[in-house]
């Protein structure tokens, strides 16, 4: 009975316990691409490669159409799934638990759930290497259970340049998945700010006029 309380006492001091993820190297800062063809390529990479193990449970195939991807391409990606089906992982959780020891995290919010956001995703995807002991590892998340899905550690320089493009597209797509209303929000924001600036100028003029009555 007492032990858990002690453990929480330690927590109270916010000690660093088991790191759930580590960022030991600096992330490569990227600007996510808003270009439709890049997002389309990113969607394809994520759906064909990531969905083997990860899910995007807050996304439906229909949402890909809202991004602007053409219907025939969405149909190709959904491969017979219903339009309103969520993009779930193809690997059942118990199978994943047996093969990896953990259930791979859902990626719907991954571009928000790590410090660095999309830059983290990008740097992680490109962070695979074979370490000094000859063991495959990741620079951004040492000890990750995820395999080097893009084949970064064995790529030569020419292939690496191509992989950077793919990682950027995938990270940009995942950034959209994490915040699909971002564009709508920024568009509305421009009008809201413009309106408020005009309103505030008017309110200032009103204030001046009202106060001018005072001697």
């Amino acid at each position, binding site marked *: 009975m007492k032990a858990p309380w002690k453990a929480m006492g330690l927590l109270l001091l*916010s000690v660093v316990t088991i790191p759930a993820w580590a960022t030991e190297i600096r992330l490569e800062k990227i600007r996510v691409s808003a270009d439709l063809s890049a997002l389309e390529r990113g969607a394809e990479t994520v759906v064909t490669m990531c969905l083997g193990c990860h899910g995007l449970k807050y996304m439906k195939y229909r949402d890909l159409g809202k991004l602007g991807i053409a219907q025939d391409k969405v149909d190709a990606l959904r491969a017979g799934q219903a339009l309103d089906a969520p993009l779930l992982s193809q690997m059942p959780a118990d199978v994943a638990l047996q093969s990896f020891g953990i259930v791979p995290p859902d990626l719907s919010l991954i571009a928000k759930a790590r410090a660095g956001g999309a830059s983290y995703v990008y740097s992680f995807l490109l962070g695979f290497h074979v370490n000094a002991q000859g063991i495959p590892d990741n620079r951004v998340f040492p000890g990750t259970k995820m395999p080097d899905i893009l084949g970064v550690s064995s790529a030569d320089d020419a292939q690496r340049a191509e992989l950077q493009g793919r990682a950027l597209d995938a990270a940009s797509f995942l950034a959209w998945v994490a915040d699909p209303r971002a564009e709508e929000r920024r568009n509305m924001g421009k009008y809201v700010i413009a309106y408020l600036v005009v309103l505030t100028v008017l309110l200032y003029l009103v204030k001046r006029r009202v106060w001018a009555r005072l001697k």
Partner: protein
Amino acid sequence: MLNKTIAWIDQRFPLTSFVKHELTEYPTPRNLSYWWNFGFLAGFVLVLQIATGIFLAMHYKADINLAFDSIQHIMREVNYGWLLRYLHSTGASAFFVVIYVHMARTLYYGSYRAPRELLWWTGQMLLLLLMASAFMGYLLPWGQMSYWGAQVITNLFRATPFIGDQVVIWLRGDFAVGDATLTRFFALHYLFPFLILGAVVIHLVALHTVKSSNPSGINLAAKDNIPFHPYFTAKDFFGLGVYLIVFCVFVFFLPDTFIEPANNIPANPMQTPPHIVPEWYFLPFYAILRAIPDMFGGVVAMALSILIFAVMPFIDRSNIPGGARYRPVYRIMFYAFIADVLVLGYVGAQPPTGFAVPLGQVATFIYFAMFLLLPFISKKEEQWLRARGLPPALQELFEQRSPRQKWNNGEGGK
């Protein structure tokens, strides 16, 4: 028709006289600067938080299996749900910004001094209610930081003498933060804003009894008071416009500034985040908590660091009017205190290792030392200023005597 209607109401309810007394004839010092805008802004933020909160509650599900998903439902599927949620989450931070500026203004201008002690104390009660609301609201998204923050903070009540363990279980409704905690926090998070609303009414009744303080620090002659409406309504609305521009920049362009990345991961009781940090507005107090190596001492110090503001009317013994403006030593103390709070905020965000530990302890020491030294410093400062000869403008104010004495002689307030 309208006049008839108003006359009909006035026979049954003091509508016109109320509006006159509290608004169109309510005397307000004409020399109030824009720093006096923040009380009005706090009221606005409260209303916006309640309005957005009610709509969020229509779509939110207070159930540990559904809460996180329901936030994503709001963000993705509810019409303008993202707007409601970002207004509310940004509004929480904005509320503290506004309240902290409001408090800093009170400290700078000595507005807590007689006869405004009760006004200051009701404000402090509002701060405590606000902190409780914010803390409980932060659990609702049921992310990792929500969960572990609530776990750590509720655990502090273990420091209660003799019945600590029972108090924590009573607060959580369970041995650990869980469904019972989430549902009660949701219920209370819905209740508290209305308690705040009630406390605001008390705060305003106190304000309208003693009237606003002003930069000169004395009660102005009647001719220097102007009606609240239209002068200060016009001024406050302009201030509101400026506030809204800044606020909306965050809502529309930087909405994730105040949302910890880890709170985008559903709560997981089996996995402690590497670094648990409270929301920024609690960081200075969190740093004070951690500066004391003993848990009980830390909790007491943290509680004291907020409650100690209540003694300001007693420990500031200077009769020099006008707050820090005419008091060079107090002014230095004020800015040193603000700097110290910022240092504490920085320390609160760091892992408790290395340099942050002694820095936090020194800053905590300075924090309390300020309050302990103020009675002596304020008295000495007054004597020094008077021996040196007050500037003519101040001498004139001073000869109108201290607000405290005036009040005690029954002359104040009007």
